[in-house]
């Protein structure tokens, strides 16, 4: 076995049938598994310019090629579909414990076609799939629905099933909805949960026990031991307060020589929320809907009141995702916080994104409100990045007279925790103005009017994460040039410095010093290649089920290339695998073009690139030469420099004509199964 199962489960929700689809090895050899295989499946099966909320859209839920082979930090599951928010390829991924259960049922992907007219969920075990009624689950939040689904499918003495579900936001077809597992861990971005809701698919519950292995299990284990050992030795006691990072406020902007394991140690010690104060002080975190600065708008006392250390005081335990050796997850007891009328108690620790977007980004110094929204959004199954960004747009529109109290039902203002919580609930449940805002900022501009565009900070329809792109032109460029735009997990200059790709990939330029006034600002082929190395590598990581925090460790410690070779036995070098990354990268762009998108659609909002530059704070005076950066990247990946369309010779060189235009029967064999 080469790590993958060689099979997709195709579920026709309209006709309630299931089909085993056997996939030719050459597809895996050219697109990997996971999100790469799913992108190929979506390209082949989603018609041009289809309605993302209609039955013609296809929703793929997939695990990675390396998941369950014995490699570590490779337990992500991915959701791939056509996104309602961007109109292009939609992709979100998530940790937790669900990913291995997909392969344990014998499938690499579960692909949902059509749409049901009543609520359903899919159950699957070693005996095959069954489409079950979900009427009793519809209306439940994601955590409750998951528990109910698991309980009703648990057989005493047998392996306990695992499930993923949508929450209220997905049922309401919100363009910001995600898909959850493990009581609220969420594959959040690009409205993938809204697509699932449009198919009236509440969830998946899996209980298979089929074995998975790679070609060389001993080598996979050896590499995993090395990885785990090195991560464990970089451990920092969690008693160390996050306040130590306050040293950042005394530091000028400067360069550093990163070792991924040393930057990544933060994640294992505190989880991601621990770096919020640091991010606020260094200019890493955008403030006041990208229009303000920490120095001027969110002073140090407010910052301290919402520092991650306040959140970590409530932590009761840490936890690990499947196959992880980091353990960035944690549970909190929030039973005594304000706002918590529902009595939520043990909940997930917020990620950095949530910690910041509902505090500093909205000038809100009430940490309790952020903690409450975190849990409410997890149960609702909604993306907190897009949610916070949309709330920011609404507040700024209100401040500038575009929205009135009568439009909302109450006044809005920066930092008003009560009104922020109320607005969040309206968005989740599509009440009042929340019905418009539930589909994000870009859609809101289309409905409310172009005068809102100034405050609708988005790129390609996606609200950007809490990583300011103005001090990092590499990150700004990656926000723009990926087919899933405005995603910090594709990389940036710090991430590239951590990855150490140049030690394995012959064409990847070295970046031993990053930040400060480094080369990132230059318009050059070398800088463009760094951006592309990040983009292609991310395609590999998402093909094998890897984790963003894993690839930050660097390719020496997180041996994705070696694991993949040990699992598949393909004889593929790192350069060969990066070529596959390029093929997937190009395919995803071709998907977007097929769906009618102009490649320039994902140019970031002017605020994201400093047009005009801020006047105060750590990122004052910075404007990213984004158009020149984008064009240089396109030139270096074989796209037309001006239009962003892949050149015919690039498509030919990547053999994409063959894989995308040949009869699909050349690559698959369908066998009906009991549904």
């Amino acid at each position, binding site marked *: 076995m080469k790590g993958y199962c060689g099979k997709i489960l195709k579920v026709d929700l309209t006709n309630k049938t299931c089909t085993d689809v056997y996939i030719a090895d050459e597809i895996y050899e050219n697109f990997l598994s996971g999100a790469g295989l799913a992108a190929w499946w979506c390209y082949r099966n989603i018609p041009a310019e289809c309605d993302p909320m209609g039955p013609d859209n296809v929703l793929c839920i997939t695990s990675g090629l390396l998941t369950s082979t014995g490699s570590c930090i490779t337990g992500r599951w991915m959701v791939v579909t056509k996104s309602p928010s961007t109109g292009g390829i939609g992709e979100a991924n998530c940790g937790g414990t669900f990913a291995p259960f997909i392969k344990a049922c014998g499938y690499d992907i579960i692909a949902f076609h059509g749409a049901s007219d009543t609520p359903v969920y899919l159950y699957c075990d070693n005996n095959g799939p069954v489409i079950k009624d979900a009427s009793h689950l519809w209306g439940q939040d994601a955590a409750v629905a998951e528990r109910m689904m698991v309980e009703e499918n648990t057989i005493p003495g047998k392996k306990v099933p695992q499930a993923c579900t949508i929450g209220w936001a997905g049922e309401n077809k919100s363009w910001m909805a995600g898909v959850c597992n493990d009581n609220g861990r969420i594959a959040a971005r690009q409205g993938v949960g809204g697509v699932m809701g449009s198919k009236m698919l509440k969830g998946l519950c899996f209980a298979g026990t089929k074995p998975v292995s790679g070609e060389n299990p001993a080598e996979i284990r050896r590499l995993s031991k090395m990885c785990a050992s090195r991560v464990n030795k970089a451990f*920092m006691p969690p008693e160390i307060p996050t306040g130590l990072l306050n040293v950042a406020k005394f530091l000028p902007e400067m360069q*550093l020589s990163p070792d991924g394991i040393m930057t990544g140690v933060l994640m294992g010690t505190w989880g991601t929320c621990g770096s*919020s104060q640091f991010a606020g002080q260094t200019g890493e975190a955008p403030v006041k809907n990208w229009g303000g600065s920490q120095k001027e708008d969110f002073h140090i006392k407010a910052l301290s009141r919402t520092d991650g250390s306040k959140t970590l005081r409530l932590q009761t335990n840490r936890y690990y995702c499947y196959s992880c050796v980091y353990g960035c997850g944690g549970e909190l007891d929030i039973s005594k916080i304000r706002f918590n009328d529902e009595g939520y108690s043990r909940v997930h620790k917020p990620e950095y994104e949530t910690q910041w977007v509902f505090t500093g980004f909205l000038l809100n110094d009430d940490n309790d409100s952020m903690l409450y929204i975190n849990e409410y959004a997890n149960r609702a199954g909604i993306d907190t990045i897009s949610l916070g960004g949309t709330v920011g747009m609404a507040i700024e529109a209100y401040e500038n007279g575009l929205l009135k109290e009568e439009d909302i039902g109450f006044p809005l203002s920066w930092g008003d925790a009560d009104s922020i919580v109320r607005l969040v609930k309206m968005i989740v449940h599509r009440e009042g103005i929340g019905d418009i805002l539930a589909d994000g900022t870009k859609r809101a501009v289309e409905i409310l009017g172009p005068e809102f565009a100034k405050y609708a900070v988005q790129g390609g329809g996606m609200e950007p994460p809490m990583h300011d792109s103005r001090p990092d032109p590499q990150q700004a460029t990656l926000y723009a040039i990926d087919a899933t735009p405005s995603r910090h997990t594709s990389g940036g200059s710090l991430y590239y410095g951590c990855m150490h790709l140049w030690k394995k990939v012959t064409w990847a330029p070295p970046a031993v010093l990053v930040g400060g006034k480094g080369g990132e600002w230059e318009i050059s082929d070398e800088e463009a290649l760094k951006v592309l190395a990040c983009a292609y590598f991310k395609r590999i990581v998402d093909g094998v089920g890897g984790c963003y925090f894993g690839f930050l460790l660097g390719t020496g410690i997180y041996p994705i290339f070696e694991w993949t070779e040990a699992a598949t036995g393909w004889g593929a070098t790192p350069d060969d695998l990066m070529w596959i990354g390029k093929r997937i990268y190009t395919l995803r762009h071709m998907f977007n073009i097929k769906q009618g998108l102009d490649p320039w659609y994902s140019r970031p909002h002017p605020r994201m690139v400093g047009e005009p530059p801020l006047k105060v704070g750590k990122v004052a005076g910075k404007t990213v030469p984004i158009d020149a950066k984008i064009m240089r990247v396109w030139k270096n990946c074989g796209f037309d420099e001006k239009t962003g369309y892949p050149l015919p010779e690039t498509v030919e060189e990547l053999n994409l004509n063959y894989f995308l235009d040949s009869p699909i029967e050349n690559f698959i064999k369908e066998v009906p199964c009991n549904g």
Partner: protein
Amino acid sequence: MKVEFHGPGVCDFSKMNPDGTIDVPEGTTVKQFIKIVKLPIIWTKVFPFLVNYEKVPLNTVLKDGDIVSAFSPSGGG
């Protein structure tokens, strides 16, 4: 001999070669290396500090090709 170094922005990188290494004399100890790159010694006490991804005493003599890694604060998530 050449030692690969990774450290925070408080360090002096002026002696760093384009390949990320620093030239130091044979027999240089970890403690001496810390002084060469001007890394505050407290940094190695509070935060993780590794040589070849192992914790080592400060009197350890470095070898050609060793990798010295000091904690770098960063945001993420």
